[in-house]
């Protein structure tokens, strides 16, 4: 069989897992300069699921798509290092300020342009916005089935074009079946992504998009890409993927941030109990009444 055509959606995000005191600006927005840019963690979980499918079904290909600044080509390189076959960076000034509606529109246009896919995988959510909306919105825009909170792709039947997925739900897991093509968003509890591969890093370490081949090294980098075409990562602007200018960037984003506030969590009322039998009895009664224990 020819294998599956898999698309992985990935995002470069500020690393909000290691936040220092200068992580927020005075205006209450994220100070991107103070936080290292990383591969969104759950997108790595999604990439791992794609890589496992590729191992299981030889001939499968993995295309990784990201939208962001030119430097987000770094996530494409990271994906190539781990086993992805090709990457696309959607970058354009007109795309700035996009909310989830405009982002999902833009990414769905990119996915359509790639075309002929069987499975679209992405992380459940990105650690900068924590919305978990982009994956589901893309599925809606493409008119596809979606499975969210996936933990593991259990099986795919290429003949019947069915996929069986274990997904995370409150208090457990459930197993669902869906038709191909479909959109799957992967939860952080899924298998962690494998490390970079030595040979692939040696091969792809100088892969770039055209926007990165500027400045003093431009000539050398362009010569290298001319000699080794696999070092070129595709770069698309809004026009390349036939975006409606009204649906992208700030113009296409109905979300308006009115204000951002720093919130300090405060403990509400607290009680001090002693180890006396009376206090313990009262606590047990209270917990039973509140249906916390029973």
């Amino acid at each position, binding site marked *: 069989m020819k294998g599956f055509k898999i698309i992985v959606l990935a995002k470069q995000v500020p690393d909000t897992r290691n936040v220092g005191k200068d992580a927020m600006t005075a205006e209450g927005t994220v100070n991107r300069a103070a936080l290292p840019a990383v591969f969104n963690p759950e997108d790595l979980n999604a990439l791992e699921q794609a890589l496992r499918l590729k191992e299981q079904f030889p001939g499968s290909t993995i295309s990784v798509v990201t939208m962001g600044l030119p430097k987000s080509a770094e996530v494409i390189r990271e994906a190539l290092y781990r086993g992805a076959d090709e990457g696309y960076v959607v970058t354009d000034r007109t795309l700035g300020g996009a909310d989830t509606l405009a982002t999902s529109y833009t990414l769905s246009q990119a996915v359509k342009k790639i075309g002929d896919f069987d499975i679209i995988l992405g992380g459940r959510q990105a650690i900068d916005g924590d919305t978990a909306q982009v994956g589901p919105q893309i599925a809606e825009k493409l008119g596809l089935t979606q499975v969210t909170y996936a933990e593991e792709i259990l099986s795919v039947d290429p003949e019947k074009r069915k996929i069986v997925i274990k997904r995370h739900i409150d208090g457990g897991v459930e197993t669902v079946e869906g038709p191909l093509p479909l959109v799957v968003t992967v939860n952080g509890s899924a298998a962690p992504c*494998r*490390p*970079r*591969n*030595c*040979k*692939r*890093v*040696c*091969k792809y*370490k100088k892969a770039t998009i055209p926007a990165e081949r500027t400045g003093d090294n431009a000539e050398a980098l362009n010569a290298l890409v001319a000699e*080794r075409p*696999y070092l070129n990562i595709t770069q698309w602007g809004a026009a390349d993927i036939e975006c409606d200018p009204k649906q992208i960037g700030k113009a296409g984003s109905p979300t308006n941030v009115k204000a951002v506030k720093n919130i300090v969590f405060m403990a509400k009322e607290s009680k001090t109990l002693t180890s006396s039998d009376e206090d313990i009895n009262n606590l047990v009664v209270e917990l039973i009444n509140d249906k916390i224990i029973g």
Partner: protein
Amino acid sequence: MANYYSDHPELEFHLHHPLMKRIVDLKERNYEDKDKFEDAPVDYEDAIENYKQILEITGDVAANVIAPNSEAVDLEGPHLENGRMIYASKTYENLDVTRKAGLYGASMPRRFGGLNLPNTTFSMLSEVISAADAGFQNVWSLQSCIDTLYEFGSEEQRAKYIPRVSAGETMSMDLTEPDAGSDLQRVMLKATQDPDGTWRLNGVKRFITNGDSDIHLVLARSEEGTHDGRGLSMFIYDKRDGGVDVRHIEHKLGIHGSPTCELTYKNAKAELCGDRKLGLIKYVMALMNGARLGIAAQSVGVEQEAYNEALAYAKDRAQFNSKIINFPAVYDMLSRMKAKLDAGRSLLYMTARYVDIYKALEDIQRDRKLTPEERAELKKYSKLADAFTPLAKGMNSEYANQNAYDAISVHGGSGFIMEYKCQRLYRDARIFSIYEGTTQLQVVAAIRYIINGTYNQVLADMLAQPVAENLQPLQARAKAMAEKLAACIEKVKAFENQEAQDFLARSLYDITGNTVMSLLILDDATRAPELFEKSARVYIPYAEAEVARAAAFIENFDINNIENYRMA
């Protein structure tokens, strides 16, 4: 995220040694792979960049997978099931992740799926993996047995086995038997030929590290009626052919991640590797020299980890209203641990560079005739590699034990509790100064070069190197050590007594090791004072005292007193 490579810039320093240019140019044969393989470097800078990337990957896997698994592996260990060895469950995870990272076939040419790394870089990977789990480092680094198959096997055997090792199949070297430990001439495992020429192996091997591996190199007696090393040949046993079972797995003090097996060979089909009768005298010597350098790297990894554990504890633990790191008795231990680590590592990589130059030239020699200059270079570095391998292995395996011991001392009572990592390091390190030749046998291997002045010549060359002006007083002290060494050698020679020389060999060895490392750390401190000056200023006074101790023993040695040492 933690990274066992990039967290220690002292490691990268050794990647930029002036000799590396020559090594990489030779190993990459002037970068002839660049048009054939997409992962091949185009020039020296590109090759070094590749090494760094590969080390980064290894450091990541070591810190984030292998190290977190190490405690579970230590507690579970391997077990026996129907004649097969089953690793601790987390060992399979370690194998899987290192395979996906592509860390196998590291030293092999790209045409066989390898990474074509020089030994210097390979030793760095070894060190980093050992720091995470010394037991797993054995399982991983036994891939370097393939160097011997590559060197002495046929082109057909290379094509059959090397790609499998590059894909992550494991190896073992089946040498020792119940009655053949340090003395491998006693090997009895029998190799016989069927009428059609097929070789069959019968017998028992014992203490075989990773003994249920996929591809074995086996030392066996092919010449009936012989009783010494000249009747032994080397064979390749492929587990896919069957015929070898695991009879027993040893319960060991440490390195529980590394299964030690007793094997029974029952008519096991095997292939002869290289020529008959050269098994021990040529091939196993090559195998052992490589393995000894591997143990030196394994030792340095544990020296580093023991120091890290002790340092972290001393910074955190408070007694008498102060962090204990502030007490002279504690920082005395910590500073010496760091100094031994830096000096021992420098000795490891110097030795690895010597090995690299002669091995790369030997490999070129398989394809074309060397020029007279290249032949001279090969001879020079081959001799240096032979001289320095037992020094790097012996000194570092002792340092690993000393650092592990001191790490427990720094921890106090907590160090004796099984919850702390330092107790595992202590148990793991103990084997380093035993296997692949005990320290006592490293002394035997080195003494020839001590007596014939090989080290003296290297020391003289090193003393001729300029050092930073502020380090010159230390260089003068190192020079005095070298002079003491020369005087002690003369004193020992003057006895004209073999037993006295054998008895005093360890003292001479200690003087040599301390003096060599003093000069190495001075050179490192000259080139990178921010990394090594502190260690140079701690190491040299320490080494000076060690030299004085051993020299006093030799200087005051009365040959008539040897009677009182004999215990039989």
